[in-house]
């Protein structure tokens, strides 16, 4: 909750303190007309949060730049259809989640082609040193996350890695709270099975 809320509140306070609500609407309208300065302002306001979300969803810092660009290009193209009754943050989150889905699909396809190399990589022994352990943790976690169905991965990422509450995740992912709860638990079971950990009861 803390990480997500901090980012959202910083974004919100920036929007409120620097431009005010009326100006924010005017900024949005200008961006909808395709004005470069307005698009720049929107990009600068939201880029950090979107980049962070993408890193947490992919676990791959090298993928962030391209995906951030894709998200904003798609957002600017679709902006004329944005009615403004949804939070811009939530809207961008959804676009980013869709881009990440495509990224995982492409990654899986690539991995199938490079199956031998990937297996060799996974067979490398772990090292006790902490930095290596962290890298190893990340690699193992995201390898396992990548094998989950999209919906389960997204619920787990939102709840566990983004640390959203059930309610926040429900609102962001656009599914009922009970669905978020179920998907997160199921995702944990699948991850534990994939990682050889004891499954929670």
């Amino acid at each position, binding site marked *: 909750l803390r990480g997500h809320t901090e980012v959202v509140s910083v974004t919100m306070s920036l929007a409120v303190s620097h431009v005010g609500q009326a100006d924010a609407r005017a900024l949005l309208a200008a961006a909808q007309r395709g004005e470069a300065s307005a698009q720049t302002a929107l990009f600068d306001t939201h880029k950090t949060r979107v980049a962070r979300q993408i890193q947490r969803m992919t676990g791959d810092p090298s993928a962030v730049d391209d995906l951030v660009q894709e998200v904003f290009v798609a957002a600017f*193209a679709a902006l004329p259809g944005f*009615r403004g*009754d949804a939070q811009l943050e939530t*809207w961008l989150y959804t676009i980013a989640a869709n881009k990440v889905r495509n990224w995982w699909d492409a990654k899986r396809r690539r991995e199938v082609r490079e199956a031998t190399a990937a297996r060799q990589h996974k067979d490398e022994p772990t090292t006790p040193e*902490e930095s290596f352990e962290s890298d190893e943790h990340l690699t193992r976690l995201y390898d396992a996350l990548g094998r989950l169905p999209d919906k389960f991965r997204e619920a787990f990422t939102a709840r566990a890695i983004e640390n959203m*509450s059930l309610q926040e995740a429900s609102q962001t992912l656009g599914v009922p709270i009970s669905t978020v709860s179920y998907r997160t638990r199921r995702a944990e079971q699948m*991850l534990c099975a994939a990682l050889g950990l004891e499954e929670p009861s």
Partner: protein
Amino acid sequence: MKGVTRLPLGGSQEPAVRNPELARMVEVARRQAPPRLTVDAERVHVAWKERRARRWRSLAMLAAAALVGLVGTSLLRGLPRGGEPDASLVAEATVQEPEHETSASNGVDTTRSEDVVAVAAPVAEALAPGVRVEPRSADAAYTVLGPWSVDVAAGVYEMAAPIEAASSLHVRVGGRTLVLEPGGMVRLEVGPRPEAVLLSGEAAWIERDGRRTSLSAGAATRRSDASTLARQAERLMAAGDRKGAIAAYRTLVRKYPRSSSARAALVDLARLLKAAGDNDGARCAYAQILEQWPNNHLRPEIERELQRLGPGPKCQP
């Protein structure tokens, strides 16, 4: 590893992660250094303009092809007037590709040609309220031609027309048009052979010659059951259409009060009503959950919400 004493993750509600080893991995993911971005607004803007230009090019080609077909048909029929091609018609049929130069002073596109859309529909800023056109693939892009009209490029989309819509939604796909009636929802895949799957409601393809083919829903999608309504409400909620989502959830709860979807629907309905300022409605929805499912695992959370909302008028059954 140090600093992993914050279990369970996920705040004060149910834990998001229960296995300690997995929680340690999640903690590492959460502590990852923020990504260093090299992409900037200018690069994004240039990429967006390129994409828009590509889009206009394909639209122009479509319009030109349609007009060539029209002129050809007229000539074949010995029209217009006296058998000679009408020069003005041919002139109008010339569609120029816009260059999309942007005025440096105000950033407004000053060169967008109206020719492209003059043959189709008037340009509108946005779709009518409640209409949803959602790209579901990376290459999907659409152009709003009017409040009830869009043109879609290759890609996958989901689209819906609100139940209370005053008009049907017209989706141009190449030379054909997909007409989505109010309350309808489709998944549309535009490729060499465009394919539409009816998720709910009614829709039909209109061919170039006016032939109409109704979309038939599969057995699984024809019924307007509780899960279909729940899915529709979730989509509306995800699209930020709070009013539409509330209406869909209310329908679900009214029609299928004992279904498994109704419980989740009531939770979301209560939350949406509260967000919309309808505290009495939210209170009644929460109360209904406790009445129908007294052993709900969300009971403590619901009771806290009811306490926060305070007392109010008696709820209608």
